[in-house]
């Protein structure tokens, strides 16, 4: 186990593994996205209160879940960066930020598009929406910090601290709908008793959630590869790789 961890920790091995994994992960992701979208848009019945507008749930909820999940991955990588200074963790952390920002942006905009017909407004400054907006700023702040600091390793350590401090926002987002009175509905899927959503709608939602998770796995590996190439550009294996691509 430790040996395996050690091997994966080498940028070269991680790069190779990522090259092998991403085509397969990408293919499964694409298939699940097609199935989930068809299921959600065509097969699932309309909601008895919200009609067809609720179909936004199949992109909104997975995007919102991923906005927080990606942050937790980023924070875990940040802890590894600070404790062990692992280069692969730096790559994963930095690769996660733009993806997390994308999911957060998507959650905010689709939520807004859902809010207009259902609440009568695109935006309210309530706890759920505001804390999710702060999450977007955390991601953007992290990205800006990475671009502002010249030395990659210093930038990674500074970013790791920022990422860890920002973790405090995640439980705030999650519990905001319970702690404050808000327009946003409470949790319907992750309740301890049976989820208050019919199976016809829950199943496509779960398919989309898995698809979004695999999408993140695929693209974060691809992005981490770029990070590794740039960070290791003077090492011999990267030079050889570039030379091989020439022909």
């Amino acid at each position, binding site marked *: 186990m430790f040996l395996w961890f050690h091997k994966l920790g080498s940028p070269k091995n991680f790069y190779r593994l990522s090259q092998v994994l991403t085509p397969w992960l990408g293919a499964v992701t694409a298939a699940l996205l097609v199935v989930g979208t068809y299921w959600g848009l065509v097969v699932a019945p309309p909601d008895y209160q919200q009609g067809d507008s609720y179909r936004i749930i199949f992109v909104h909820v997975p995007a919102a879940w991923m906005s927080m999940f990606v942050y937790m991955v980023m924070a875990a990588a940040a802890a590894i960066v600070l404790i062990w200074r692992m280069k692969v963790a730096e790559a994963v952390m930095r690769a996660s930020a733009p993806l997390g920002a994308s999911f957060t942006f998507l959650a905010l905009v689709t939520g807004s598009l859902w809010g207009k017909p259902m609440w009568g407004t695109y935006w309210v400054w309530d706890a759920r929406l505001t804390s999710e907006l702060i999450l977007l700023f955390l991601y953007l702040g992290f990205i800006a910090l990475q671009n502002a600091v010249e030395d990659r390793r210093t930038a990674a350590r500074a970013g790791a601290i920022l990422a860890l401090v920002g973790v405090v926002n995640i439980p705030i987002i999650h519990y905001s709908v319970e702690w404050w009175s808000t327009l946003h509905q409470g949790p319907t899927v992750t309740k301890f008793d049976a989820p208050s959503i019919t199976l016809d709608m829950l199943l496509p939602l779960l398919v989309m959630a898995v698809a979004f998770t695999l999408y993140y796995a695929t693209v974060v590996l691809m992005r981490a590869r*770029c990070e590794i190439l740039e960070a290791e550009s003077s090492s011999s294996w990267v030079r050889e790789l570039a030379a091989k691509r020439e022909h």
Partner: protein
Amino acid sequence: MQEFLYMGGYYAFVWPSYGLALLVLLINLVIPRWRERRTLRRLARENRRTRRSA
């Protein structure tokens, strides 16, 4: 088909949501591919230069 596109009157909210999701996912997929190729090309160029000067 017409009815499907109409989305029970919510077409102006449902379709932009799905369209934007598709766009965001595609952009994030294309960027790393493009960036990896560009980096490898740049390194290959640098390889050639060092060989020539050696």
